[in-house]
């Protein structure tokens, strides 16, 4: 049973466009949502995160929008660059140690 779902599986945007990556979850006790960026051959790197008490978190070109009622969140990457091409993982956690990962969205930014 997948507790964290991501869509689309893969996404291609042109350089300069906004990429929108979607995530939904089932467990209403999840209260912390990190997004990780993973390049081929590397481990995932924490990109940006949000707590369930907030509905928006911004860091440069990366913004998380969070809808607690619908159990949905999205990562917006504005002014996408070829260097943003990577796989992005939405993850979720309760107050405990266990982080549950989605299956990822592979983003390709074409110049």
């Amino acid at each position, binding site marked *: 049973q997948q507790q964290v779902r991501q869509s689309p599986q893969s996404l291609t945007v042109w350089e300069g466009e906004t990429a929108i990556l979607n995530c939904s979850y089932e467990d209403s006790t999840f209260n912390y949502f990190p997004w990780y960026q993973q390049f081929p051959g590397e*481990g995932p*790197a*924490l990109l940006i995160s949000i707590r369930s008490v907030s509905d928006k978190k911004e860091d440069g070109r990366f913004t998380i929008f969070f809808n607690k009622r619908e159990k949905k969140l999205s990562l917006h990457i504005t002014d996408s660059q070829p260097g943003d091409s990577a796989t992005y*993982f939405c993850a979720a956690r309760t107050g*405990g*140690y*266990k982080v549950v990962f989605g*299956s990822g969205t592979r983003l390709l930014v074409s110049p």
Partner: protein
Amino acid sequence: NSKVIQTPRYLVKGQGQKAKMRCIPEKGHPVVFWYQQNKNNEFKFLINFQNQEVLQQIDMTEKRFSAECPSNSPCSLEIQSSEAGDSALYLCASSLENYAEQFFGPGTRLTVL
């Protein structure tokens, strides 16, 4: 940038062989996690430590997998008798405390022939 060090980066073993990988957590991070990331990008938590003590582990880990984090030595994850299904990227992550941000290393890619 994470400073978790994992060795080796690549590991090739035959079925039934032992496979051992190591992790040096980021300096000052007492909590270490091991995850398995398969070819479908699914992450599976295996075990975590605080200093040298096991905090949590899954059932699979109790059977063929063993792990330790000795003081003043790298942490390690060992698969006693490798199976084809163990082929995956093994990720080590560290954090300041059990419920804090986790920072990942580059992983050890295990291929079991």
